[in-house]
């Protein structure tokens, strides 16, 4: 889609003013930690997307691009903080420039401002995943399957598929719960009807028989069938005068009172008490489990947040959220609490039979209290109402479950029973008993009236249950189809990604894992990931593979996913200090793999490891001028590169201020850096150090000695071939080199390395200036006087054949005539 030709950064993050010119090719930024590499990555991400994920991701509360994007000294001038990038757009055959300022990050200035170019820029802006940091890379590898699924789906831009799945599942679960509640309501209505009918089992035949017996007493025609609209008191006068007082039907009142007392006895029975004890024990166990408590509390909080979300603003922090992102964010957090959710459901199952009984008593208390108020004289049912209130509190605590202590307390209060209602029950029984006995016709009339009322309630509850079940079945079926279809599609995607991933990983590790295989196993909402470990079986990547191998896997998986996602449009990626744990042998292979498998992709790589950079160069992933080498960073200047002109000028400026200590330190650091490069390109022998901490005393004398030897060989070879010009050129270089080396006195360090340059800091300015001059002369003689490139040996492996520079000005043959 795009290639980066150049990037200019101004007053942005830790950078004051810097331009890099990758020219559409792979580019590396190398430097120790804290030299500003990440600032370059931030700038690239910002100019292409308008965002800096480092300032907006998880755990970055209080940070923002607007406030913290500008350099700290420009924090009040966001318009002065901007990044400009020049892009090549191969598909359009055009170049474009984007300039984006922190002041107005959503409106970049695009030149030329053409619709096609703007579309490309907008598309790039939607794909922040072109930046991969080690932190992200390891997320794919070591994450829990649920979380990995989210990360991978986000990278593949498939969050919407997952969000919809979560929504369908939530609706399916909710409608099943609603059907469960409705079933309880219907069962309760059925029990009330059966009680009123006074039949052993609620069947149509039993109902008709019982009803027709009463209808016969009233000379009403028998009912032969019970249709949904049939009234069992059909034919009976139902008109009541408005002044008629509420009539208490003796038999019904008596039955209600008996039922309540029975239910209360059941609640106090040893069976229910045993259930309460078991439930309390379960709660006590969970109360000891701090992880559950934290998790369950968070889960409940998240569910409440989800329920209270109004499609625009987070109900907790008032931050505006896109609905899809908000739900995905909460769903991702909920995955962490899946174990707590499981434990909670188990406890709810233990509590359900107790809760059902409590709710039955609550309903009966309401009915009996109403009865007391309807009797003449009124029976005071305050004790029943108080108990009713208490049970409602118990029911609420058991339903809410959290806090667990409250639920346990509620269960304990059930065991106490309630003796205070007994006198009220006696008064009620007495008042009901005193009601006149109705005659046979009145009893039949009362019977049919009550049964009709309860039949209506039962019919409504049954209709509601039928509808709730139908919704639940539909929601479940749709969810199952959705899950099945999306899993099938994701399976196909992951199979392809798995194949590419395995191939890339084998390319990097062909020396010892040539048979490597991987398995990406998607299941609903999860993505399992197992890898072969030397033919011993499939295990999670973190089980046996080293950290370095895991880093390699992360990169390969990222590349496989990106290739699937973007296909030919995968033309640009930033690899921010990834692969830091990969051993040197495999780094070379990683570089080769990137170069060979992704020839159309421009990689922008950062590393703090110079050896890693060298591998990239040796393999050809990075061209000789395709890197910026940062040496230091300070808040006033930002990152500084290893640049000869800068260094000598900087040393002079320190000396002008009589700061010999600073000048000496910089000279030493620069010479260390330069000597490493010289030893590398001249293939000098350096005493091996296991910790790779080579000092200037280890490096510079070896570089000088090697250069002298090569020039001597070049001279001898030219002589053997009779090449007078080359002989003279080599002789001249040799003489210049010998003079410079003698002037620096560095060769003597081999006698007692580290002593001499360690004393620089204590020299006087006048004594140190000649030292600087001598070393500048020495450094200059390592380079071609025309192109200023350090002379290098070719080839970079096997026997040296030539000593050359970049422009061809120096081209000494090292092979003598046989």
């Amino acid at each position, binding site marked *: 889609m795009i290639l980066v030709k150049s990037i200019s950064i101004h007053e942005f993050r830790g950078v004051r003013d810097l331009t890099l010119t990758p020219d559409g090719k792979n580019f590396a930024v190398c430097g120790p930690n804290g030299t500003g590499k990440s600032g370059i990555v931030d700038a690239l991400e910002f100019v292409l997307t308008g965002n800096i994920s480092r300032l907006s991701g998880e755990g970055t509360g209080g940070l923002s691009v607007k406030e913290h994007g500008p350099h700290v000294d420009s924090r009040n001038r966001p318009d002065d903080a901007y990044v400009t990038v020049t892009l090549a757009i191969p598909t359009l055959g055009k170049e474009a420039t984007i300039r984006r300022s922190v002041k107005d990050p959503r409106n970049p200035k695009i030149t030329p401002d053409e619709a096609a170019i703007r579309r490309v820029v907008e598309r790039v802006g939607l794909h922040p995943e072109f930046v991969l940091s080690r932190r992200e890379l390891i997320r794919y590898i070591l994450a829990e399957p649920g979380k990995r699924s989210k990360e991978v789906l986000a990278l*593949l*831009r*498939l*969050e*919407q*598929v997952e*969000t*919809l799945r979560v*929504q*369908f599942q*939530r*609706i399916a679960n909710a409608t099943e719960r609603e059907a469960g509640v409705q079933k309880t309501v219907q069962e309760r209505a059925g029990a009330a009807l059966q009680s009123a009918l006074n039949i052993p089992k609620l069947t149509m035949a039993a109902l008709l028989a019982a009803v027709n017996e009463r209808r016969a007493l009233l000379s009403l025609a028998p009912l032969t069938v019970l249709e949904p609209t049939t009234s069992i008191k059909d034919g009976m006068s139902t008109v009541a005068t408005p002044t008629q007082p509420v009539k208490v039907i003796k038999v019904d009142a008596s039955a209600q009172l008996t039922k309540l007392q029975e239910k209360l006895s059941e609640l106090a029975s040893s069976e229910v008490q045993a259930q309460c004890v078991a439930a309390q024990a379960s709660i006590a166990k969970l109360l000891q489990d701090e992880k559950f408590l934290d998790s369950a509390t968070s889960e409940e909080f998240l569910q409440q947040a989800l329920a209270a979300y109004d*499609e625009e603003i987070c109900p907790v922090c008032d931050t505006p959220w*896109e*609905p*899809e992102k908000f739900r995905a964010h909460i769903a991702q957090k909920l995955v962490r609490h899946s174990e707590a959710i499981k434990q909670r459901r188990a406890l709810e199952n233990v509590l359900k039979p107790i809760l059902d009984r409590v709710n039955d008593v609550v309903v009966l208390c309401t009915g009996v209290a109403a009865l007391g108020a309807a009797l003449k004289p009124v029976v005071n049912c305050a004790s029943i109402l108080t108990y009713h209130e208490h049970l409602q509190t118990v029911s609420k605590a058991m339903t809410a479950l959290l806090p667990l202590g409250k639920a346990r307390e509620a269960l304990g209060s059930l065991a106490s029973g309630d003796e205070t209602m007994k006198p009220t029950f006696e008064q009620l029984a007495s008042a009901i008993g005193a009601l006149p006995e109705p005659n046979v016709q009145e009893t039949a009339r009362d019977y049919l009236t009550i049964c009709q009322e309860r039949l209506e309630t039962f019919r409504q509850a049954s209709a509601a249950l039928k509808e709730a079940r139908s*919704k639940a079945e*539909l*929601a479940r079926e*749709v969810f199952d*189809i*959705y899950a*099945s*279809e*999306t899993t*099938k*599609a*994701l399976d196909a*995607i992951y199979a392809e990604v798995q194949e590419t991933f395995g191939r890339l990983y084998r390319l990097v590790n062909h020396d010892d894992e040539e048979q490597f295989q991987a398995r990406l196993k998607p299941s609903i909402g999860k993505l399992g990931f197992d890898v072969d470990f030397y033919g011993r079986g499939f295990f999670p990547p973190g089980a046996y593979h080293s950290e370095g191998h895991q880093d390699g896997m992360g990169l390969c998986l990222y590349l496989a996913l990106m290739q699937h*996602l973007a296909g030919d449009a995968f033309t640009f990626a930033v690899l921010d200090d990834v692969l830091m744990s990969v051993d040197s042998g495999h780094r070379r292979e990683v570089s080769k793999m990137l170069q060979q498998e992704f020839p159309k992709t421009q990689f922008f790589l950062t590393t703090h490891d110079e050896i890693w950079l060298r591998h990239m160069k040796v393999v050809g992933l990075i061209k000789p001028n395709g890197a910026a080498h940062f040496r230091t960073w300070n808040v006033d200047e930002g990152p500084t590169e290893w640049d000869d002109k800068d260094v000598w000028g900087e040393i002079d400026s320190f000396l002008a201020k009589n700061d010999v200590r600073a000048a000496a330190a910089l000279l030493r650091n620069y010479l260390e850096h330069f000597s490493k490069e010289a030893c590398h390109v001249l293939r000098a022998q350096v005493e091996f150090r296991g910790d790779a901490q080579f000092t200037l005393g280890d490096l510079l004398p070896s570089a000088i000695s090697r250069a002298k030897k090569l020039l001597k060989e070049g001279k001898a070879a030219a002589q053997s071939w009779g090449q007078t010009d080359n002989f003279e050129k080599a002789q001249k270089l040799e003489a210049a080199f010998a003079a410079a080396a003698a002037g620096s006195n560095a060769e003597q360090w081999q006698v007692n390395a580290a002593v001499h340059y360690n004393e620089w800091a204590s020299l006087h300015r006048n004594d140190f200036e000649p030292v600087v001059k001598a070393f500048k002369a020495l450094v200059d003689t390592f380079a071609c006087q025309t192109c200023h490139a350090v002379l290098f040996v070719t080839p970079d492996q096997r026997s040296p054949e030539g000593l050359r520079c970049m422009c061809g000005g120096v081209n000494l043959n090292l092979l003598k005539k046989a």
Partner: protein
Amino acid sequence: MTNDSTEAKAQATRHGNGSVAHEIIGEFIVALEARPQYADVVARLSKVVFDGRVSDASLRIALFGELEL
């Protein structure tokens, strides 16, 4: 070879923006369409599932129809 299923898939995908995500959701719509009893549901669902901002309430209405007042 173009078969009915491919045609139906293309039809469903046309509702979306052509992204991989919408292609997958389109395949779900096609699978649902194969069940005649869900004709009404499919018609309603295909109007909302491609919307990245679809809410639970809209999905419920699409699944079960408008709530009666």
